[in-house]
């Protein structure tokens, strides 16, 4: 089973290459993309099963032993996230069949999507700090091209902000790696964890932790480093922003969780306090940002930021229960945010634009889509018994157990405003009568009534997942708890990789 790990990176790469070769044959690209995504999905299911049966899996690339060669490693968290990512990529690539224009397909949309997947999966599985950087670069460059190509004015502007701020993140990441290597002479995460736990090296730990907090904080769109996200996520074609919203920021969160449980978990009380403060601000500032917006995708973008804060809460509290809460919420958040972003496509198709002031009447005309949206929106709003509720409940329980009352208050405040924001969307887009389309040259607001099955099916599946996680939470909680247990006791991880010898 160990040898399946590189497949998770190889499959998207091969898919990308084949689909690049057939770039003038859209039909073939669809088929290749579907086959590749399905292969990735089945591999990641196999890996998760392997991890659950055999414990942590790892493989040394090129068979060079642990601290010297590059390690790929899958624990419950990694394999779980890989699986969720595979699901999202599969559904988004199906949605792309109709939602991406032929021009973009001809210029390599599908290969880029799979390269992005390769970067995401690589980030989840690598056990080497520099290798993580490489995967981050793969993600950055492919997301940059996906964001920018098509060359519409708003897109280019968003892309510029996106790239500039993300390059800053890469710089900080690289600086961190430099300091790390300069201090410890190793790049292997398990080896670093071991050395930082050792008696000799407390030196520079705080500075290093801060560098990585900043680098990953920008990636994850944490307050006050999130500006690139609302500046860019509403500009590209919908499936692009859906996969970004679902997965890219979450890779940042994953990296934060990995680093701050495995490497900097020693006595980093101050760092955890800083994370908590940032989490509280991210939650509140993010959701307040959503209130004045009028564009569907911008509203969802600011919600996305707010819930990045919620995800950090568990990392900041840093008890096994809190980490389980973060992992549970992570699964929920990936699914719901992808779903809501894909909904933009529905709304744009039916209403002709994404300005909620000009939309309306979808409740009467498309009650089934309205029901799907309602479920997704209520889940984001933390209404039970949907997926968003359980994650929040676990986090609140963990917060109250640790007597972090102000933080719990922030979670509740943000939850309340999220509900407000979601009900605004519902009320404006679905309930309200459609205002007579006033002659606006920018937005013709002439909707179509045809919804392609390749768009409705992925959304339906995502909503189904939301409901299943809601009414049958115990298997998901079980996974989250396993992941959290491994995270809070990294000894297993370290021993598995280093095989006892440092």
């Amino acid at each position, binding site marked *: 089973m160990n040898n399946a790990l590189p497949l998770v990176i190889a499959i998207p790469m091969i898919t990308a290459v084949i689909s690049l070769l057939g770039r003038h044959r859209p039909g073939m690209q669809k088929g290749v993309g579907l086959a590749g995504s399905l292969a990735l999905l089945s591999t990641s299911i196999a890996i998760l099963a392997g991890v659950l049966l055999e414990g942590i899996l790892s493989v040394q690339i090129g068979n060079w032993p642990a601290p010297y060669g590059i390690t790929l490693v899958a624990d419950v968290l990694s394999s779980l996230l890989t699986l969720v990512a595979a699901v999202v990529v599969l559904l988004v690539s199906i949605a792309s069949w109709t939602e991406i224009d032929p021009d973009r397909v001809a210029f390599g949309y599908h290969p880029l999507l799979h390269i992005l997947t390769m970067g995401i999966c690589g980030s989840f599985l690598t056990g080497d700090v520099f290798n993580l950087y490489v995967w981050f670069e793969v993600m950055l460059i492919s997301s940059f091209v996906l964001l920018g190509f098509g060359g519409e004015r708003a897109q280019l502007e968003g892309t510029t902000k996106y790239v500039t701020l993300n390059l800053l993140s890469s710089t900080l990441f690289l600086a961190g790696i430099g300091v790390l290597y300069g201090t410890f002479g190793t790049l292997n995460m398990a080896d670093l964890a071991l050395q930082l736990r050792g008696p000799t090296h407390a030196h*520079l730990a705080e500075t290093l932790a801060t560098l990585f907090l900043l680098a990953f904080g920008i990636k994850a769109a944490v307050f006050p480093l999130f500006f690139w996200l609302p500046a860019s996520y509403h500009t590209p074609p919908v499936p692009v922003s859906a996969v970004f919203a679902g997965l890219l920021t979450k890779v940042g969160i994953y990296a934060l969780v990995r680093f701050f449980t495995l490497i900097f978990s020693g006595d980093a009380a101050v760092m955890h306090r800083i994370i908590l403060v940032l989490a509280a601000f991210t939650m509140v500032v993010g959701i307040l940002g959503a209130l004045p917006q009028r564009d569907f995708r911008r509203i969802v973008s600011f919600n996305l930021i707010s819930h990045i804060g919620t995800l950090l809460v568990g990392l900041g509290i840093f008890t096994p229960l809190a980490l389980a809460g973060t992992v549970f919420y992570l699964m929920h958040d990936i699914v719901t945010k992808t779903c809501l972003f894909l909904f933009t496509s529905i709304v744009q198709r039916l209403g002709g634009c994404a300005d909620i002031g000009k939309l309306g009447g979808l409740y009467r005309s498309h009650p089934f889509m309205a029901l799907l949206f309602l479920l997704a929106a209520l889940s984001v709003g933390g209404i039970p018994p949907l997926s968003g509720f359980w994650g929040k409940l676990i986090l609140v329980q963990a917060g109250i157990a640790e007597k972090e009352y102000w933080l719990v208050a922030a979670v509740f405040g943000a939850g309340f405003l999220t509900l407000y924001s979601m009900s605004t969307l519902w009320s404006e887009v679905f309930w309200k009568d459609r205002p007579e389309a006033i002659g606006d040259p920018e937005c013709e607001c002439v909707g179509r009534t045809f919804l392609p099955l390749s768009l409705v099916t992925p959304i339906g599946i995502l909503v189904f997942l939301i409901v299943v996680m809601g009414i049958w939470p115990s298997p998901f909680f079980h996974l989250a708890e396993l992941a959290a247990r491994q995270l809070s006791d990294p000894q297993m991880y370290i021993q598995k990789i280093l095989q006892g010898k440092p």
Partner: protein
Amino acid sequence: MIVAVVVGFVLGLLAPLVVRVARNGTGWITGLVPIGLFAYFASFLNRIQAGETLFFPYPWLSPLGIGLSFRLDGLSLLFALLITGIGTFVCLYSAGYLAGHPDLGKFYGALFAFMASMLGLVLSDNLVALFVFWELTSVTSYLLIGFDSEREAARRAALQALLVTGAGGLALLAAFVLMQQAAGSFEIAILVERSPDLRTSPLYAAIIFLVLTGAATKSAQFPFHFWLPNAMEAPTPVSTYLHAATMVKGGVYLLARLSPVLGGTDLWRDWLIPLGTVTMLTGAWLSLVQVDLKRILAHTTVGALGACVLLIGMGTQGSLQACMVFLLAHGLYKGSLFLVAGIVDHETGTRNAADLGRLGRAMPLTCIGALLAALSSAGVYPFLGFLGKELLYESTLVGFTPVLLAPCAVAAGIAFAGMGAVVGVRPFFSAQGRFSGQPHDPSPGMWVGPVLLGMVGLLFGLFHGPLHSALITPAVRSCILQAGDIPTPSWHGLDVKLALSALSLLMGGALYWKWSALRGRLCRWRNVGRYGPAAGYDHALCLLEAFARRQTRFFQSGRLNVYLIIVICTAVALLACALVRDNISFSDLVLQRWADVKTYEAVIAAILLTATVVTVRAQSMLVAVVALGVVGYCVAVVYLLFSAPDVAMTQFAIETLSVILLMVVLLRLPRLRTFSTSRQRLRDALVAVSAGLITTLLVLVVTTQARNPKLADFYARNSLVLAKGRNVVNVILVDFRGFDTLGEITVLAVAAIGVYSLVKLGSHRDRIPEGPPFGGEARGDDVSP
């Protein structure tokens, strides 16, 4: 049991289908669901009467102590019967009331979902499960209030109800988690046993406060009462069911359910009694100034809920008994009155009490139902309402500070009697009526509800002995820890409470007769609400919007340079703090190593710094590019000096190439111009310098440390032996860490695709924007509105 709860949700999804198939029979078919459930729950009457408490546990999220454990005792049974019983009539009624409405299917869907949630709420023994259903009732209430979604008023009222009850729900969740923290369980049955732990816990006051907030928002207690009258935007069957008979009693139910857990303390009484009293008076008073039938009823409902909270707050056996009887009586007569108001509205097109009259002959059946309900509301013997009022007065008389509470209760009783008559009597017997159309009795589905509910109120009043032993006594038992014998209320002869009853009936009658005259005088008070909590809600929402707008403009300004400044400043500040926490000594780093600096190093550094300054300050593009080249070459020289010739070679090559490329590109652009003011440039310079200083400091710290040479040694030793390569750097790149190289090659390939498609796809579509879209201070597309 779980089937009984869940069936509503499943049927809710099927409802649109049923409506489409059943057409005219919709009401009778849908009514089968609640009546079936009613029969199911009624079958438990004997066992509950015998004092049993039935538990139906189902596992849900066991590791966290969360289960779908249902409990059927007197209290839940009373509520379950009320919910399914009135639900039956509401189902029948809605089909007629909303006949031909295109959204009838969705309406029944939401109604069934609500009924299921409400049943779940009153049957759950686990606090989390209870909360789940609690929130579901809020959501279904939101959907039902906003049923006429095209009207803005309906949407606003729905949002208001959602926000108020949603905020209360969050408070409740916090309370539940705190209770679990203090007593170690979510199960109410266990919490009852551990209630001494809870009462002595330091969290007790917080728990009480939060539970009360939750209950007060749901049950429309002061100062959250304002959402309930506004919720009258909902179709009348919804107002009947949710906002009179069942959902608003959820808060009362919760307080009753938790009183053996949390109640009986001074704190409990000190909070609940004033809360209930103030709400009772507010509701009674505000009902006087209304003319809309439904709003009159909504305000008296607020008053009645206040009375219930007051009675639970007292917490004695007698007061809880009073609460249960009053609650049942209220559910019956208020449900009936609402249905009547709906019929009147349906037939005449108006709900203005002042405009209605002379309907008695036109709609005799409706009139009978209305009269029965109004008499019960007034507390006339032998209706159940009479008993409820008697018990209420008795509790205030024997309980705490009767001097204060009894007059309040009587005042409320007067309003209930008078305003009940205004709704239930006046439209039928008043001499004048200003409305259009030919009103007549509606279809049987619609009148059967008010008539039967009124009759039940009368029957229960006549035969209250069996009612007590079957329903009321078990319900009281489940709210009290050690219940003694609960006597069936009986005739005590002439006493104070009877006198009070008579007084309130007389005064109520006077209020009714003089209502038209009084109304003119009272109307000037109608705007009193402008200064009340409802206005507070509007203000809070406005403030929130304004604050959100300002905050977002500040942070998401649309200016890339502002973003960069904020990010860099954050980075510098956090890193500086971290360096301080790491105890980095500045003198060790800089002062002591100053002697090591060689002259040629200093020269290179000086050139580098100068070139940097020139790059930034250059007035012409050419100079800037050349200076940038100098910076690059200096860096390459530094590499050379520190014995990395291969890196230096690469640096030289890249630097040369980039200078040439920059020349080619930049020389085609217009001349440099200054857009920023000198203050902005100063600010930017400060940010840049501080970032540079922090980086320098980091480099200095790292270079002072002795590096662990483990990796370097391994690579040097094994490069030839194991990897068969003489050039260690090459071997690292393609073998030891070849996987990284794979990634980097991918990056290059994607970059190539990117450049190609950016240029080609852009020109292909001829959509390349003219001029740079993102100037220095230009605000772009991502400005917040």
